[in-house]
Structures are given as C-alpha cells and as structure tokens.
C-alpha cells in the first residue's frame, strides 16, 4: 500500500493501462504538453509520445466524435473533458453515437471508450462551471457512469472502465483531486464496475453517498456515533449499473435511509434510488426515505451562498436524526 492523492491514483491508472494495451490512447484539451488542466495526465506525453497522448483544439463535439470513431475502428480512447461542464457540448456524440451504437448496429460495433474529467461542485466558479451531471448520463441505456470517492476506487475503477467494452462516463470530483488515501501497489489491482462498497458498517440508519458526499457522510457517521446512532455508509461507486441489492440489504437491516448528493434534488440519482428502495423494501421501512441534495438553484458564485447550496455534515446529521425519530 502507498498513500497517494486521487490525482496520482488516476495518473497511475492511465500510465498502467497505456503500457498494458497499445490500443489505449488519451485525447483532450491540454492533456499532452500542459500535463492536463488538473495534472492528471502528468508525464504521459513524455512517456508514451504524441501518437498516444493527443492535444485537441477547443472542440468538444469534434474530439468526442473522433473518439467514438476510433472506438468503432478498434481502439480504446480515453477522452478527457477539461471539466464535465464542457461535455454538454459533446452530448450528441456521447448520447446519440456512443451510447446507442452497439444497439443500432445490431451488436456489430462495441464502443470501448471512456469520457473522463472533473465534475460536481468546484470552488467559486459559479453556475456554468460548477454542477453535477451524473443523472443526465445515467438516464441513458448504453452508458455506464462511474464516480469514485477514494484514491483506491479512482485507480481501480478507471482501469476497469478502460478495459470495459461499453462507453463509460467517469466523473472525478473537482474538489477531491488532492484527497489522499491508501492504494494497493499491485499493478493488476482493479475495482469491478457495478459493485457498491460499504464504507462503514452500522445498524440504525443507512446513508447512501457518492463522490464528494462520501467523506462528509463518514464524518457525519462519526458525529452520530457519539450521539448513539450507528450509521452504515454505502458508496454505490457506479451509478449505472447501480448495485441496488447492497443498498436494499442494508435497508432491510437498518429500516431507515438518508441519500446524500451534491446534485439538484429533482429527477436525480437519489430519486431513482429512493424509488427502488420503495419498490424492493417497502415493508422494511420504518421512516420515509430522506434526501439531502444540493440546492434547487444554479450554483451561486458568492462564497456564503455556495456553502449553503452544497450539503454539509450538519445537514446529513440532521437528516439521520430525523429518520431515526430523534428530534
């Protein structure tokens, strides 16, 4: 085990997969000469050369389409969006081409492509550069959506995503690149897609959290433990396919659920998880499922308002106390 940042873990995953399979290549804005806007691709141009690590113009729809074509032709592209905010420009290629090609070609063209980059809330970059888009992509059949919360998960899940034969949306949380954690040294270490991880075991309330909310949920669980409430924290890690079985098993044990997310509350991932819990574990619920979501407004620029728009530890604690009938 070595303790590294999520940024370094992602860099290791890319390096190892570039070395392991020569059909893998990176493409995106500033990924080569500048080492990536967030330095995730640091040193890779030098190591693997300009045929494997390619800078593009500011043309998201264009290079996303190039990637889909390369995948159809047998390569395994890793397309970096400088942030997922800019992936909005490329959605025609992602949704109408990448997600649907296997289906529309009757299984003739698999699309082993990864679209990756930072997403979620960032620090004071306002409405257009600070938003969570996972529910958009998770909506479409044909796409897989992955959101790691630890360095080990980031590395293991990115390697699995590159090796996967379906298009994967891989969303790295912009505020979490510097988070440190232990990562196995084994170069064959991977984390399977579609498998949730119980980050903390507990018996009174289940907290389902992903990405930025995982460390907050774990902190909330610590606070609540001192108040006599035992929380189980589950990180789905993959939003689609969603490991609902692990969540339902936990709910059957705890009878109460809080779902924490930084995205907007309406029509989102928590709404889907909540509906599935209701369908599969209705008779086990002792309280309504409680959601803790980002505010239903575009992300404010002002620091004080930004803080209010994103869930924090106190809001998760309050939600848990509410479903546990403590207040």
């Amino acid at each position, binding site marked *: 085990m070595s303790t590294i940042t999520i940024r370094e873990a992602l860099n290791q995953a890319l390096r190892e997969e570039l070395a392991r399979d020569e059909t893998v290549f990176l493409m995106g804005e500033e990924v080569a000469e500048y080492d990536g806007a967030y330095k995730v691709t640091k040193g890779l141009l030098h190591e693997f050369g300009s045929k494997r690590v390619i800078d593009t113009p500011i043309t998201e729809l264009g290079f996303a389409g190039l990637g889909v074509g390369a995948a159809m032709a047998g390569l395994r592209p890793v397309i970096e969006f400088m942030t997922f905010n800019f992936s909005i420009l490329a959605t025609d290629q992602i949704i109408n081409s990448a997600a649907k090609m296997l289906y529309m070609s009757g299984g003739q063209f698999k699309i082993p492509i990864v679209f990756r980059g930072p997403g979620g809330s960032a620090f004071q970059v306002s409405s257009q550069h600070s938003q969570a888009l996972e529910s958009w992509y998770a909506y479409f059949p044909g796409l897989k959506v992955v959101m790691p919360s630890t360095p080990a998960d980031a590395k293991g899940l990115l390697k699995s995503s590159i090796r996967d034969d379906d298009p994967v949306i891989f969303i790295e949380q912009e505020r979490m690149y510097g988070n440190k954690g232990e990562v196995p040294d084994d170069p064959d270490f991977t984390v399977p897609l579609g498998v949730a991880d119980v980050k903390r075991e507990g018996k009174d309330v289940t907290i389902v959290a992903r990405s930025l909310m995982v460390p907050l949920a774990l902190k909330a669980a610590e606070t609540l433990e001192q108040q006599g409430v035992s929380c189980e924290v589950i990180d789905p890690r993959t939003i689609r396919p969603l490991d609902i079985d692990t969540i339902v098993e936990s709910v059957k044990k705890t009878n109460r659920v809080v779902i924490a997310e930084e995205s907007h509350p309406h029509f989102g991932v928590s709404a889907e998880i909540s509906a599935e819990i209701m369908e599969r574990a*209705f*008779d*086990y619920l*002792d309280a309504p499922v409680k959601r803790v979501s980002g505010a239903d407004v575009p992300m404010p620029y002002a620091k004080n308002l930004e803080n209010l728009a994103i869930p924090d530890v106190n809001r998760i604690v309050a939600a848990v106390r509410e479903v546990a009938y403590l207040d």
Partner: protein
Amino acid sequence: MATKVIMPKLSPTMEEGQISRWLKKEGDKVSMGEPLAEIDTDKATMEMQALGNGVLRKILINEGQSAPLGQLIAVIAEPDEDIASVLSEAPASQPQEQKKQEQAPAPEQPQAQPQPQAKAAAATGAVPSRVDNGRQPQPAAISDSGRVIVSPLAARMAAEAGIDLRSLQGSGPGGRIIKKDIEAALTQPKPAPAAPAYPRIVETTRFQQAGASAYRDEPATQIRQTIAKRLVTSLGPVPHFFLTTDIEMDRAAEMRRGINALDPDLKISINDVIIKVTAAALIQHPEVNASFQEKFVRYYEHADIGVAVAIEDGLITPVVRAADQKSLSQIAAEVRELAERARSKRLKPEEYTGATFSISNLGMFGIDEFTAVINPPEGAILAVGAMTPKPVVRDNEIVIRQIMRVTMSCDHRVIDGATGAKFLQTFKKILENPLYLVV
C-alpha cells in the same frame, strides 16, 4: 365510530384463542376498559377489555369457538351506526353472521335514512382503512382522519405479532406508529387480570361401531394443543439422554420432619427440599444451568426452577425464581401459592415461562421411576419418583432405607454425559447429607 374487536394476543405463545364466555350481550352498552369477554388462551383464561365506547352490536365468535389472533370477533359501535362495511371484512366462515345481521335491532343499511351521528361518523372516516397489504385489516382510530398512521415496517411487524395497532400510541411525527413502538409492545406483556376460571362447555360425541371399542371425540383444548406442539418440538430436535440414580432420603426426610416440628405452619414438603437442593447443585454446576440457543449456549446466573403442576386439563410449570437465593420456607410458600393459582388458571405468562431447569415429581402417584420430556429451551429436567423403604446393603448388613429414584433428562446439545453425571453426583451428595445446605 365503530370499534372492531379483534382476538388479542394474551400470552407469548398464543396463536389463537377460544371464547370462554362473553361478559356482554349484543345490545349491551360498553365503555372503554370494561371487561368484554373471557378468552381461553393456550395457557390460561384471561379477560379481554373493550377498547372503545358504544354498544356491543355484533358478536361474531360464539362461546366455545376459536379465532386466530387478529381476527374480527365482535363490533362495538353507536346504536344506530352503519356497521355493514365493518362486518363485510369478517371472514365468510363466521357463524350465524347472516342470520344475526337480519335480526340486528338497529338499521344497518346506509340508505335507511342515516342519523346525524352516522353522517358524522362517516365524515371522520368510519370506514377503516387497510394498513397491512390486505392481510387481516387492523382497526383504525388514531389520527383525526380516522386512519392509523404507521410505518410500513411497523405495520408488518404488528400484523405478524397479532398486535392491535389501535391499542398503541405512536411515538413518531404526527403519532406515526414506528418500529420502536411495536418492540415496546412486544416486550411488555399485557397485564393478565385475575379472572376466575369457568368450566368449559365441551361438545362431546360418543361413537360405537360393531366389534370395536366405543370411543368419544372431544375437541382438543388450547392447552392440550400447546402441550402437543411443545413436546413435539422437544423430542424432535432435542437429543435427550437419561441419567438415573438412587438417593437415600432418610436424612432429608428427617430434616424435613425436624423443621416442620419447629413450626407446623411451614408445611415444607420433600419436593420443596428437592427444589432447594437442585438449585444449590445447579449453582455449583453452571454448565447444567444452561440452554442451547442454536448459535450460542446461554448460561444462567440463577436457578429458576420450573415445577410441573398437574391441572384439570393438562400441566403447567410455574417458576420459582432464583431458588438458589431463597430459604426452604420461602420456596415452600411460593410453590404452594403458585400451584394453587395454576390449578385455578390464574397464572400470568411471566410466571410459567423462562425457567432454567425443571422438576417433575410423580412420587405422589406411587411412580418409582420415569423419564420426563425437556421443556425447551431449558437444558434438562429431573423426574422424581416415589420415596419408598427398601432393603439396601450398608456395611455388609441389610438395612431398610428410604430410597428415591431420580432420572435426569439432558439436552445433549449442551450437556454431556459426564457433565450431567457430575451434577447428579452433587445433587445426590447434598440430598443425602442436607447439612451441606448450610455449609
């Protein structure tokens, strides 16, 4: 609004109840808390109280008939209230429903010019809502709208345990009944009012076929069914083995005579001495004062001794709690009092459950020796035979001694042969030399 009377859970093992006696007739006024009926559970006859005010409009289960937990057995309502919708939820097999409905004195069809009260009742939700997925509907009475507010989990737990949701106070927001409330209701046994036992009216039928012996069929009583169920769960999954020994009782008998001579009111029996000695031996052998609980073995700190008492239609084992800490006179008084109430069926559930070890004594019937069936989850039971003078060899001479033969049945899952034998050795040593009790 109408109050549905359902078969309540009156003992921890009760699955159905038999109406022993209705204390109110159809048409009688009843108020909340008043005794409504006596119900024969599997262990005792208990009183059921009314949970609503009004008139006992309909009896659906007659005296001598049984109903499973949670089944609608009667309806309390205003004299002129429409109870047709409530009755429509009763199982079709209930007796005389049709006939009685026709005889009912009050108008029950909503078309028949509803009275103001009936209108008000309808407005507040006289039609009870189903809260448990179409299983036996639970009565509704909690919220202003007449609905029981209950979490899905709590509703399911209540349905499984046969708990009347209406009898609970919800502790969640808006009075919602939640898991905690059901758990509290489950751990709090219902108070068992001391109801006198009434002789049961039993339908018996005689049969005679040519060449074969005559026989008669009597409906199996609740207690007989429970005994059958309990014993099958015992000899089936519980691997018994048996240890027998003879005990010279002369000194114990002499001690008993001596104590009773001091104070004739004490009335200590040999069985009381056996209970005291058993408790003392159990404390010395905690591995026998134990219970096999599938995933773990439970060892008890005190010797709670179950004493089998024969009653009119079966047997019951009232428990002398912490017999190891009680004096002979306390044990004697307690056993007398418990046996007395057992025979008149006035024991509370907590008084005949949860022993750690049991004693069955058939000495008074002249039985020399027998084997007893373990009452799970206890680990063992001691079967005590009659004390009789027998010739025995002592110091190469034949002498007469009071000999009592005991056989211990052990659950081999928790007690092994040598473990049981060592316990019995201690038991024999103390009983043959009761001075050990004061050492």
